[in-house]
């Protein structure tokens, strides 16, 4: 009798779990967008015999059910905490480092020698044609080595950068790696995002100034002001953990004099900072209005100098610091540009010539640096 009663309760408990979530899942409406995952969630697939026979209908239907499952975000959090309980130090390609640092994982051997060399030769061609300066910024895993989990593997960018310096020649290569290494204990990368911080970029700026023999004392470290204290970046989205938010800083001096910023040849604004992004999840978009194919900045410094920057998003918080040095700054993101680069640049080159700067982080450089002459 006792056995029967116990069995009965077991059945009640386990079926309750299934039935309650089934019912709740039916009651709950579909969401179109997930804030946590920052993506559109799957919709109910359209029925057709063809799609059924191909097996597409049932596959899509499963994706739809899973992505719309009741309490999806909570379930994902449960799984993450289970991983933490199992003492895992990486989730979804992100290392859980010391001091609350989330560090994006780049495994050794991801890029072969041949791939590295190919990209460097392509870069070299640009450098030699335009007498350009190159800043390749290492990612956090190479700099914050003390904060990485014990024994955690990473793609060693020091070797790659040595190769780059050798290929490009020291007059074209700015050693950002050493500059950042020296300040590895400071807040030079975001804890929740894969970008370098404004402070990190500032150390990059010092290296730039020193290497080019320009004044590097236009802004002091202490002039940095916070614009937000609750930035949760892309790495936080990947691990979906409750972590301490980052602050984003800027140098107010860079906005002291009026500028005219033209985005993609049509959208004209009077600042290279966009405060509206601070209210969204993508707060790093504050700098240079997130990503654009081509940006023109006209400054109030009428010194007749022009700079052409070819860059990834690491440059977004860096470029504003160069405003006092140039009358005109052109900023190009090659991912959104399909034309012939050199011809395009020639179109913008004034008679007296222009400086050309290439700024990427190493990974984005290896992944995305490509152009047609």
């Amino acid at each position, binding site marked *: 009798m006792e*056995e*029967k009663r*116990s*069995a*009965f309760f*077991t*059945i009640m*408990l*386990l079926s309750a*779990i*299934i039935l309650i*979530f*089934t019912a709740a*899942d039916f009651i709950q409406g579909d969401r179109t967008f997930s804030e*946590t*995952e*920052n*993506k559109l969630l799957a919709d109910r697939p359209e029925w057709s015999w063809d799609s*059924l*026979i191909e*097996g597409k209908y*049932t596959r899509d239907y*499963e*994706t739809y*059910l*899973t*992505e719309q*499952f009741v309490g*999806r975000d909570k*379930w*994902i959090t*449960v*799984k*993450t905490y*289970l991983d933490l309980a*199992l*003492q*895992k*130090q*990486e989730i*979804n390609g992100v290392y859980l480092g010391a001091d609350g640092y989330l560090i994006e994982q780049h495994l*050794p*051997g991801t890029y072969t020698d041949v791939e590295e060399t190919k990209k460097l030769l392509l870069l070299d061609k640009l450098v030699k044609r335009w007498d350009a300066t190159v800043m390749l910024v290492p990612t956090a895993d190479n700099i914050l080595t003390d904060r990485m*989990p*014990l*024994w*955690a*593997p990473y793609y060693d960018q020091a070797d790659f950068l040595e190769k780059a310096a050798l290929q490009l020649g020291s007059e074209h290569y700015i050693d950002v790696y050493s500059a950042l290494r020296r300040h590895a204990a400071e807040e030079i990368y975001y804890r929740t995002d894969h970008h370098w911080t404004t402070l990190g970029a500032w150390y990059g700026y010092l290296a730039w100034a020193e290497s080019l023999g320009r004044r590097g004392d236009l802004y002091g470290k202490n002039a940095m002001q916070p614009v937000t204290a609750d930035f949760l970046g*892309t790495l936080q*989205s*990947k691990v*979906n953990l409750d972590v301490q938010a980052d602050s984003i800083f800027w140098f107010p001096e860079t906005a002291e004099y009026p500028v005219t910023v033209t985005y993609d040849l049509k959208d004209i604004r009077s600042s290279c900072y966009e405060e509206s992004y601070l209210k969204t999840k*993508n707060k*790093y978009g504050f700098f240079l209005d997130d*990503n654009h194919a081509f940006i023109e900045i006209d400054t109030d410094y009428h010194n007749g100098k022009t700079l052409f920057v070819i860059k*990834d*998003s690491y440059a977004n918080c860096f470029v504003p610091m160069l405003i006092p040095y140039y009358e005109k700054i052109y900023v190009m*993101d090659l*991912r959104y540009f399909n034309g012939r680069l050199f011809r395009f640049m020639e179109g913008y080159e004034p008679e007296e010539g222009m400086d050309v700067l290439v700024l990427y982080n190493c990974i*984005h450089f290896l992944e995305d640096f490509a152009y047609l002459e």
Partner: protein
Amino acid sequence: MVFSSVVFLFRFLPLLFIVYYLVPGRGKNLVLLLGSLFFYAWGEPVYVLLMLFSTVSDYIHGRLLGRIRGKRAAKGILASSVLINLAVLCFFKYADFLIQTFNTVTGMSVPLLALPLPIGISFYTFQTMSYTIDVYRGEAKVQKNLLDFGVYVAMFPQLIAGPIVKYRDVEARLHNRKADVENISDGMKRFCFGLAKKVLLANNIGELWVLVSEMNPGEMSALTAWVGIFAYAFQIYFDFSGYSDMAIGLGEMLGFRFPENFRYPYISASVTEFWRRWHISLGSWFREYVYIPLGGNRKGRLRQLLNILIVWTLTGIWHGAGWNFLLWGLWFAFALVLEKLFFGKILSWLPKAVGIVYTMLVVLVGWVLFALESPGRILGYLRVMAGMGGRLADAEGFYLGRQYGVLFLIAVLAATPLFGRAAEGLRKSRTGPAIALYRFGEKVIPAALLLLAIAGIVDASYNPFLYFRF
């Protein structure tokens, strides 16, 4: 449809069982058959016809055998049934393998068929063959009811990945079965444990194997290689035995008793013992329908060794159409023959721990053959494991061991009878608190595992889209 999915757990499962329990008497079989066909068609909307063909074909063969049992023509009908089953299996599973081999040998280039493998075909063809063979032998009665026979073949719990249920094991219950409260509760618990094995253990430790299997053996340390193949050993065990647990549990909820398929294989002290504990239903199928008909051990030593060789060649390629699977089967045949000849005797004199270590070594080498398909990678991997490939240990190996250390520990414990014995000990002790603890645990543990497994299933599709990746 797989068990570890939202569509199964929160659509199919509740609906099927509610209807199944509500419908009275003979109607239950109709519900079960229609449900099972839907279950299969969900993943194989076309090949469901192939399964129906197999079912009807063996049903007819069975009826024919019933009419002319004992006559000479019966042999022909049995041969026809077996041939049709094997032809279907060969065509869908081995055609491309045979064409490829033929092309390699002759240097010709006959185009491949590139047919996708119908899910579960290796399981259900073996099941239906057991039926006609048993009817021919007079060990099972002819099934005149197509519905009951359809239920036997298509029944969703074991349809896709076994256990391979012999017809006579379920014969009586096809027509008349009952699941009481205790059966249902035991079945549910068993299902939860199986689901947890699959989702929480196999899938998680499988991530580690994915990492290692994608590395170049030339750049791997011995430590990494060992960590990797242990991860695979646990992945395949918990995946497969978890699936069997779920099947057995679901069967119990329906009133069936399926045979056990795994009995803690990794505690075996010899390879012979390992194969009595691993995928038992397949081993017993081959034993009954191949090994013994060939003469087993009754026709002299030499003949027995040959029989072992035949059975293990077949067992090897049953697992997949590839040379590595054949090699894998022969590797075990080799160990089994050695144990039959003299090594088993030696093992029995040695401490049990030695036997366990030896068995584990044989099995792990077997998994390398099983998991890595190309000869180059297999040899490279084995070399590294043997310490002939460079470094013995490196940071990467330590890192992987560190990340998965706790999971490994749980996996090792879960692969032994420890938890089961502890529970049994509590249940059988007659003291009040122990019983109370058992009663509490038998409800709360499966419930907690079920919840965690759901989290694992939902999380598997977690894929944040980082449009602002730059």
